[in-house]
């Protein structure tokens, strides 16, 4: 087997090996059971005391959401104004300018909602101060917000009938102190010792071997690159993101970064099973997600490894799809990352997706359109929960029983919420793309024809899925794209959090009926296949026409 394929397989299995015990640990942290990190509790108590938070006061789902939205609003205002005036603030060795209001609007939302769509390049668009106290800060707290939201789901199905679902601030703070910060410190040190810059020195000017004078952007990047992956944020320090040789210096760091972005989303699925004491359900969900991942991974991998037929036509024997890829990473690890980063909503890239093969582009788009195969930090499981509820409902109708999940009846109100959330994501993507396609767009697009359409479709899909990767050829730093994707990102973040949390909260409050012989088993392979079918059918119905106009048409043009 060649070393590139081995590399991908090793990467995946190491991810599994870390994710499983991490899931157990997360379940313990969220339930308040003793863990080896309890030495951090004095610091947590300091935070509760100073901020006036009563950690023992439990919240219902509405209070959870109000607390989440309140603190998110504080961050949004804070981030917007720092970005707007960054040039006048300290730590700006490269003399970079302020952001325009529309770009600051887009960027502050983008990092607030864990999307990390970037309509600027880090080298010239941000100061070191903004990179640290806005971008890095938001990468931590947005990930922790998602985790705190999914913790409500954990609590809702852990006990019997209850309205008390834990405290938002406790889940939020513990996610940072017990998970994100310790993992980020370890990873940042690994990166710093592998060649990623971490010091505060500004741009360097050097004379190359051949005698040209060039500049090299640097900065305290290692810490940010660590949390960008662990938090499934994805926004890069440098413009080229993890394709940049300082952001991702070698094959080893590439593995570290690929693993880091996957471990927490995977661990959360196991954690759910452990927390509600139904390990089998956790495994079943993980199984469906993994099959879903493979459904996208295999075509993407084959189409990238197959090379670009257009290069063969102009006479190259070696027609490897190296456009937009790096030699040290190679095609296989790039393809692996393309799928992982889109299904997990990281949105960091180690190759330019715009230059990937048409079928790969379709798989990347589908990954974000479905957005729940592992999925983003916390929100992936919440999205999956929506499909699970729909599958419960449909299965219930098929066998002629009242739909039930975890001993609670699923009724009209919950179904309405689930249906709205499931349809809202396609709505945002398709309406956005339709409006953009209607505009005279020649100046935006970097590629003609079907691929140009894909660039616009990708941008809205990435925004609504809070992914943040892009077909980066799109000229997106202008008022139209900054404002429209800003709005899509906001809606695409908070409604899909509120919806499932509301369903979980409502169900938790319902009468608990113990399981009987007639109960629909949700942890079986049959039900897993059912959920998979629901996910695929919804995605196909909603998105197939748009995919046909873009990548599918390009595929037939090229092959």
């Amino acid at each position, binding site marked *: 087997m060649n070393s590139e394929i*081995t590399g991908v397989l090793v990467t995946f299995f190491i991810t599994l090996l870390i994710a499983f015990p991490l899931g157990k640990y997360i379940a313990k942290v969220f339930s308040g059971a003793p863990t080896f990190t309890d030495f951090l509790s004095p610091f947590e108590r300091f935070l509760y005391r100073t901020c006036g938070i009563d950690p023992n006061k439990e919240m219902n789902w509405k209070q959870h959401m109000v607390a989440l939205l309140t603190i998110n609003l504080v961050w949004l205002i804070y981030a917007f104004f720092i970005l707007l005036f960054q040039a006048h603030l300290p730590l700006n060795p490269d003399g970079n300018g302020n952001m325009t209001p529309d770009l600051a609007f887009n960027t502050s939302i983008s990092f607030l909602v864990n999307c990390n769509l970037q309509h600027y390049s880090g080298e010239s668009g941000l100061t070191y101060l903004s990179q640290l106290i806005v971008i890095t800060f938001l990468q931590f*707290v947005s990930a922790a917000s998602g985790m705190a939201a999914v913790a409500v789901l954990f609590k809702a199905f852990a006990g019997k009938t209850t309205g008390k679902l834990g405290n938002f601030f406790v889940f939020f703070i513990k996610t940072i102190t017990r998970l994100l910060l310790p993992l980020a410190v370890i990873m940042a040190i690994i990166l710093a010792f592998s060649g990623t810059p971490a010091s505060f020195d500004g741009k360097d000017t050097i*004379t190359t071997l051949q005698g040209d004078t060039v500049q090299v952007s640097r900065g305290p990047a290692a*810490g940010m690159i660590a949390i960008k992956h662990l938090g499934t944020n994805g926004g890069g320090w440098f413009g080229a993101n993890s*394709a940049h040789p300082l952001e991702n210096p070698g094959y080893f760091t590439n593995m570290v970064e690929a693993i880091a972005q996957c471990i927490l989303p995977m661990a959360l699925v196991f954690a759910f099973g452990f927390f509600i004491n139904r390990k089998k359900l956790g495994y079943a969900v993980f199984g469906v997600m993994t099959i879903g991942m493979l459904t996208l991974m295999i075509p993407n991998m084959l189409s990238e490894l197959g090379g670009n037929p257009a290069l063969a036509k*102009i006479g*190259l024997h070696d027609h490897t799809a190296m456009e937009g890829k790096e030699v040290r990473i190679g095609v296989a690890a790039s393809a692996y990352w393309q799928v992982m980063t889109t299904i997990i909503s990281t949105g960091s890239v180690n*190759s330019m997706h715009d230059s990937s093969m048409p079928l790969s582009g379709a798989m990347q788009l589908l990954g974000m359109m479905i957005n729940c195969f592992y999925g983003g930090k916390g929100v992936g499981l919440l999205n999956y929960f929506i499909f699970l509820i729909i599958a419960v409902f449909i299965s219930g109708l098929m066998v002629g029983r009242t739909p039930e999940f975890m001993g609670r009846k699923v009724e009209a109100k919950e179904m309405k919420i689930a249906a709205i959330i499931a349809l809202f994501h396609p709505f945002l993507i398709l309406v956005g793309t339709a409006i953009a396609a209607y505009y005279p767009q020649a100046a935006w697009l970097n590629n003609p024809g079907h691929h140009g359409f894909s660039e616009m479709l990708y941008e809205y899909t990435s925004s609504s899925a809070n992914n943040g990767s892009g077909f980066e050829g799109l000229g997106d730093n202008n008022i139209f794209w900054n404002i429209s994707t800003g709005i899509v990102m906001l809606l695409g973040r908070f409604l899909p959090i509120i919806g499932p949390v509301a369903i979980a909260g409502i169900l938790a409050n319902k009468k608990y009926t113990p399981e009987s012989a007639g109960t629909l088993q949700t942890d079986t392979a049959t039900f897993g296949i059912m959920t998979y079918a629901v996910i695929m059918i919804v995605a196909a119905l909603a998105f197939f026409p748009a995919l046909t106009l873009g990548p599918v048409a390009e595929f037939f043009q090229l092959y």
Partner: protein
Amino acid sequence: MKKYLLPSIKLTLILILVLGVAYPLLIAGVAHFAIGQGKGRTISVNGKVVGYENVGQKFTDDKYFQGRPSAVDYNAAGSGGSNKAASNPDYLKTVQERIDTFMAHNPGTLAADIPAELVTASGSGLDPDISPSAADIQVIRIAAIRHLDVAAIRKLVADHTDKSWLGPDKVNVLKLNIALDALK
């Protein structure tokens, strides 16, 4: 909402200090013990810095091994790929031109023998590496210009090839060229 506003603001302020200030300072402090002290790994020749180990450089001179095409012309004040689609006709024209240029500078080479990475732009525009075969195909040109033995240069390439059981084989172009300059 009011109830949570004050705790939110206080928590935000403390976390900005912890996550946005203390954390990067800690990492910068630890990185001081790494090679390059966290400023990036530089390479010097005769005491003069000629580049960064991981940042690719432009080599246009025929006496040097050349790296990959770059969408940012190897200026590391920025970074990025071409973002050209595989099907884009203008892009394919550009590739054709690169093939023609390569063949003009390397007489006797067939288009079919050129590795794809030498005529396609990298993702970062700063790719420091090429594959061993992309180095090999340039050996004859370099031997002719420098009046050196082909076998000696092939050995140099082999010595500078990074092989691993994980990931692709690669040659760092800058290091290879420095070694080439040292070859007498």
